[in-house]
Structures are given as C-alpha cells and as structure tokens.
C-alpha cells in the first residue's frame, strides 16, 4: 500500500516536473493561459455576430472545456514524451503497480485543468458580459473539478492508445477538437443532429458544461447533482477503460517490441 502511494504521489509529481521540463513556463503561459483568453473571445464574438446565445453561454462552455486541455494533452505528452525520450521501456519494466503509476500522472493534470478553467472564468468576467456571484463559485468549482477529472480520464485513454500509436499527439488534437464540436461548448445541444446528441451524451464535458451553465444561471449544486453524477460516472468509465487498455497495450507492446518506435 505504502509503495503504491509512493508511486502515485512521488511518481506523479516527478512526471509532472518532467512535463514542465518539456513545457517551460515560457511555453506554459502562452499555451495554457494565453490561448484560452482568445478562444473565449473568438467564440463569444462569433456568438454575438451570429446572434446566437449570450456571452455567458460561451464563457461557461469554453472555460469548462479548457479544463480538458491539460488532461488530454498532458496525458498524451506523458506517454508520448516517455516514448520520445526512450524511457517508456524502462518505465514499463518496473514492477510498479500500473494503476497508481498512471493515475498519479493524471492527478497534477486535473489540478492544472482546474487552474486553466478558473483563469478562463476570470477572463470572461473581466472582458465580457459575464457575471458570477461569490455564492456560485464553490458549486462551480465542484463541477469544474469533476469535468477536469472526466476529461483527464479521456486523456488516460488517449495516453493508453499512445502505447500502441506512434503519433499520439494527432489523436490528442483530434479528441480536443471533437469535444469542441460535440459537447455543446459553443453550440446549443438541442440544435445538433440527433446522432451527435447521442454521441455527446457519452462524452465527458457535455454534462459538466450543462451543470456549470445551470449554476451560472442561478441553480444550486443539488439542482444539477444528476448532471454532476453522470459526468463523474462517465469519467470513471473512461478511467476504467484506460486502465484495461494500458494493460492490453503494454502486453501487446512487449510482444511486438514497439515501445521504442518513434
């Protein structure tokens, strides 16, 4: 148990530090904090121009969606980076339990997603027609944390596929864009075709965004608890799928000797 906790916390911490070795602050600030400002402004202004929804709709949608960025890209970079630096084989040669090994890497990314999201809400409040009362913030924080968890779980799936694919960054980019299209970030869900709504209901973010919009619109956490639990359940399902895939692709990678293929 103690060893697993050590792998979870210290392994996760070291991996996150390594991530920042690749992602220096001069990389982090423009990418994780700079780009989100313009993403929110871009979609809010399209919304104004197309005369669809309010600024609040776009601030909440994009701020919650931005919590996905760290989780998905971060997990892709964790596995892709290990492969790139040729440390994936030594890592998988260790006897460490895979569950804390990879979940430990996910934890700092969830925190990172929450920070990015909080910053995005602040930017929205500062630059656009978006108000948030102090009493709404704790409930919103819970929703963002749950959404960041579910997106990082999806990131774990992407990371697991990175054990099998050479170019995991391609997949990570595709997944982030797909979330932007399907999850009602900038498009009212009920205007999407039925099959897209079906897909959206099975993806992380969709329920988190809906819950966050509800809270920003005056609902309490208990009013949107069904959505939050659904988001949490979807996150748990993706995390489980990721764990199975990690196990499967690790075996497959050993058999094919493909961990060092770049």
């Amino acid at each position, binding site marked *: 148990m103690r060893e697993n906790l050590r792998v979870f916390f210290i392994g996760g911490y070291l991996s996150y530090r390594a991530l920042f070795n690749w992602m*220096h602050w*001069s*990389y*982090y*600030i*423009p*990418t994780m904090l*700079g*780009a989100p400002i*313009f*993403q929110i*402004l*871009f979609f809010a*202004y*399209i*919304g*104004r*121009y*197309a*005369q*669809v*929804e309010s600024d609040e709709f776009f601030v909440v949608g994009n701020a919650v969606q931005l919590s996905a960025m760290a989780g998905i890209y971060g997990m892709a970079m964790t596995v892709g980076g290990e492969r790139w630096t040729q440390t994936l084989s030594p890592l998988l040669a260790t006897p460490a339990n895979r569950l804390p090994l990879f979940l430990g890497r996910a934890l700092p990314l969830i925190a990172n997603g929450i920070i990015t999201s909080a910053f995005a809400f602040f930017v929205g409040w500062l630059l656009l027609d978006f108000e948030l009362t102090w009493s709404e913030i704790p409930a919103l924080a819970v929703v963002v944390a749950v959404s960041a968890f579910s997106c990082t779980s999806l990131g774990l799936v992407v990371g697991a596929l990175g054990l099998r694919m050479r*170019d995991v*960054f*391609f997949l990570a*980019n*595709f997944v982030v*864009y*797909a979330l*932007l*299209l399907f999850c009602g970030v*900038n*498009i*009212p869900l009920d*205007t*999407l075709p039925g099959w897209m709504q079906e897909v959206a209901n099975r993806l992380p973010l969709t329920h988190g965004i809906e819950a966050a919009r509800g809270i920003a619109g005056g609902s309490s956490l208990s009013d949107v608890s069904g959505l939050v639990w659904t988001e949490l359940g979807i996150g748990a399902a993706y995390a489980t799928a990721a764990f199975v895939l990690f196990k499967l692709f690790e075996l497959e990678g050993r058999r094919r000797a493909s961990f060092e293929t770049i």
Partner: protein
Amino acid sequence: MKTLRLIWVGWKFHVKSLTLSGFFILTSVLQPIIFASVAYFMFRAGAREGTLLYVALGAGMMGIWSSTLFGSGGAIQWQRWQGTLEYCIAVPPPFLLVILPLTLATATIGLYSLTATLVWGRLFFSVPLEVAHPVAFIVALPVTVVGLGLLGLILASTFIMYRNANALSNLLEYPVWLVTGLLVSLSLLPFWVGPISWLLAPTWGINALRDAAIAGNAWPEIAMCLLLSAVYLVIGYFALQHFERLARERATLTLT
C-alpha cells in the same frame, strides 16, 4: 533563373513532405472541417441572415493561417530538432531562399483547408458554391497564399531566437482568426483592432475571396495583398539576416 528554380524545387519538395505529415493533415483538413462545422451550426442556430459561403470561406482561411503559423513558426524548430539548421545556414544560397519555399509551401498546404471546408459545407450543409467572379477568385487565391507565405517568412525569421517557438504559434492562432475578421465582422470589435487587421494579409485575403465569391470588387483587396507581400518580403529579408547573425553570435542555432 537559379533563384526561381531553387524556390520552385524547394516549394515542391516541402509541399510533398508536408502532405505526408499526419500533423499537417490534421491542421489543414480535419481541424478546419471541425471548426467549419462548429461555425455552420452556430450560424444556423443564430438569428443572423446570411450566406454559409461566408462561413465556409472564413473557416478555410482559418486553416490556411493555422497551417502557415505552425508550419512557418515551426520551420526553424524542426530544422533544429533534426540537426539540419546549421547546414541550411551554411549552404551557398542565402538562407532566405532556403526558408522561403518552406513558408510558401505551408501556406499552400492551407489550400487543402479551403477545399475541405467548401466540399464539407456543400455535402453536409448545402452551402452554395456559386462564385460570382471566377477570374477574380482564381487570382485572389494564389495572391492570398503568397501573402500568407511571406507573413510566414517573418514568423520564421523572428522565431529563430526562441526555443519555445511553438508556444507563440499556439498563442497566435485564435487572435489572428479574430482580428482579421475571418468569421466575425470587424465592426463588432473595438476600433483599435481595425488598424492591426490592416497590417495582416489574411484580412485582405479573406475580403478578396469573399468579394470575388459572393459579390463585390475584389481587385483593391488583391492589390493590398500584393503590396503587403512585398513589405513582408523586405521585412523578412532583414529580420532573417539580423536574427541569423544574432543566433550565430550567441551560438543558439543548435539549442533544442
């Protein structure tokens, strides 16, 4: 003649090479299609009357900009990672003629975006593809690509000094989409955005394409695009020389 041959051969090589890159296919085909779909759905859900062709052209131009930004901004970085930057600088032809075909090629690859968004829009969103002034449209297209390619030259030359050039690329994608009016009328943005947009080729490029495709006189915008291209070339030439000298002095060419 030698110069033209070098540019032609380099351009052809880089277009082929970029076409084989999964990342560029994503940037130039999938990403614009996804953003175009988001925009189509938003405009459909909204109350504004207007043509979806306006959106399709804007989304296509977004892809051209992304492709130029990541391609040209990352041009130096790739050479660094591959360990070929020193050789590119040491070869007899001027560095400008080595890097220019690459920046032009990245903008050219962006044409996949425009094609993809127009075809996608036609197939799934019934976007009308009638072009009001075909000649002006055919002229506007390469002029816009050259304008963006030369803007890419400035990016490539200034990014030579930064190890984390991709971070700047990540940062500059949305702002340029916004301030050049690709999907949003510039009249909605603060007044000070106007002068910034005038300095950017995508503003004139998209206006030229829209005027040619929908209605209007595209030739003044085409002329502005050409004028800006010439200015970019001069700035790119001097910037490249300056930053190349600095990089040699500071021995930062091989930094990764």
